[in-house]
């Protein structure tokens, strides 16, 4: 059984000029221990989906339809208090900027200990011992001495290690990593990704890795979901989506990655920009930018259809034009 099962998730923002649908019928599943990469341009709804899963949508945004199941139990309709007990304990989260994610006024040890005690109810001494072990685990040198240091005494990369320890210290089964390396130096990015891979494999943690960096996905994920304008454009095993993308949008994304192996004269780019939520075109949302567009795309919206090893929301795979 899947660890996380998102079915037909819809997120809406009521505004003065009508309701905006930011996420529209998104479905996917993550198995225990699996890494699902979620890619897409800014505003495609990647982070919003993650926020909905941990129940931290910023009002006025709200889940307007669909279900989120964790371990076969529905979690999107839980009370604040019951959802709080799930956050940290069953679903952990990491955010983009490690410089602003830690409370500047408390030592990292205190922040770790309070998280551990909230969920695991350990004594002060046991919680502290566990905190030190986690800091060692995520590669903080001299953890025993550094545990009482404050966030400003660490570099950005070190802080992201602390954030990872904080997100995982109550041993959640699912980690939502929202652009965990975007704010870091390129040289540090690789270290953090390697750390995330190692530590989630060791603990059997499933990961939903949200990023716009295809390189990170290709290296880390088992499967990948490509999002476009609040919907999933294509989802499937990472090798297939990268090598033989079935959706013209995925194809465009892959074409824009520089390759070390093949000589490419010019990187491809997708003309135009993603539509705003107020002006999503009829039919397939990608149709105004699509190089393979035909009549049906402009009138009818495609659902995810089997396309080789992946599934793609594209009429090209409906069996003949």
């Amino acid at each position, binding site marked *: 059984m899947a660890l996380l099962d998102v079915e037909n998730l819809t997120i809406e923002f009521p505004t003065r000029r009508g309701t905006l649908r930011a996420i529209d019928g998104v479905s996917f599943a993550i198995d225990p221990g699996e890494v699902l990469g979620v890619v897409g341009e800014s505003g495609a709804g990647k982070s919003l989906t993650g926020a909905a899963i941990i129940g931290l949508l910023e009002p006025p945004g709200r889940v307007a339809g669909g279900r989120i199941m964790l371990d076969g139990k529905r979690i999107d309709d839980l009370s604040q208090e019951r959802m*709080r007990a799930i*956050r940290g304990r069953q679903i952990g*989260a990491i*955010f983009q900027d490690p410089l*602003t994610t830690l409370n500047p*006024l408390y030592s990292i040890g205190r922040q770790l200990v309070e998280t551990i005690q909230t969920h695991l109810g350990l004594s002060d001494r046991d919680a502290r011992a566990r905190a030190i072990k986690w800091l060692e685990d995520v590669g903080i040198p001299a953890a025993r001495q550094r545990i009482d240091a*404050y966030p400003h005494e660490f570099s950005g990369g070190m802080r992201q290690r602390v954030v990872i320890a*904080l997100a995982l210290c109550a041993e959640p089964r699912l980690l939502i990593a929202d652009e965990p390396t975007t704010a870091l130096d390129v040289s540090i990015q690789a270290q953090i990704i390697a750390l995330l891979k190692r530590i989630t494999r060791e603990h059997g943690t499933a990961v939903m890795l949200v990023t716009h960096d295809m390189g990170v996905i290709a290296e880390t994920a088992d499967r990948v979901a490509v999002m476009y304008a609040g919907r999933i454009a294509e989802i499937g095993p990472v090798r297939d989506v990268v090598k033989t993308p079935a959706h013209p949008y995925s194809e465009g994304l892959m074409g824009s990655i520089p390759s070390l192996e093949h000589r490419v004269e010019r990187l491809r780019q997708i003309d135009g920009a993603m539509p705003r939520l107020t002006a999503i075109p009829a039919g397939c949302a990608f149709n105004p930018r699509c190089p393979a567009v035909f009549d049906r795309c402009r009138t009818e919206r495609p659902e995810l259809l089997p396309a080789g090893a992946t599934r793609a929301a594209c009429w090209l795979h409906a069996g003949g034009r």
Partner: protein
Amino acid sequence: MFAFIIARLFQAVPVLLAVAAISFAMFAYVGDPVSQMLGQDYTEAQRIALVKALGLDQPFWVQYGRFVWAALHGEFGLSFRLAKPVGGLILERMPATMELALVAAVLALSVGVPMGVYTGIKRNGLLSRVFMVLSLIGVSLPTFLIGILLILVFAVLLGWLPSFGRGTLVQIGGWSTGLLTLSGLKALILPAVTLGMFQMTLIMRLVRAEMLEVLRSDYIKFARARGLSQRAIHFGHALRNTLVPVITVVGLQLGGLLAFSIVTETVFQWPGMGLLLIQSIAVADIPVMSTYLLLISVLFVTINLVVDLLYYAVDPRLRIGRGGRH
């Protein structure tokens, strides 16, 4: 830390000397104490003798030096009006003002901070809106009007609380306190509420604005994502991050409460320093006025030092290079 305190005390010296110069200038150039002391009929010889006796024929800087020297020894001259040593007069009045200001400050903090936190968390709640409207009244109504309204309701119409004075006092050493008797406490309520009202609403609005800011921050979002309790998030993580600006304002306001409780003291005939000051101003009692000025500057310097020390206690980022690295 100790070195920091010493350094700050040295920085305070020029400030205090400047204030002393101003308050001395009041002595030297406002009004003519000689003619006031001589009265209507006097001879030129008597006048010259008095000028010599008072040392007023000396150059300015000699007079200023004597003034500072005397002030350092706690001598501030005689009040023109009461013909008593000014130092003693002010000391006698100080407990009344101190008690009033501290009770008002405690009241303002203990009500203002929780109300600020509440209205920050439940931004759109009904109670929050009520608090916000009430606070608008508190901020905009002048102190004397609040005082008079409170007297009208609680002293005149209901007759629950006295409308003036400090009630029965208890002497502890040189300190006369009204905090130990029922009538003293009852007498304190109305003036303290009047004096603290503005500060309370100010603190509430400040804490609210800061809370709204902090609750949007990434570390609060991350604290939520870690599943911490609401209580830990709001009072542990959020409130502490709002404290630096709150401490700044409260520090300045406390100085203001002590220095400018004049209106409240006048409305309630509260025998404190403010009432002494306003009575002295009315008859141009320069020694009292200039001594008061000096005292207030010392108070502000002290409060600012305490505020700086509190910053260090609250925010570890400021401790680098001062308290030593961890």
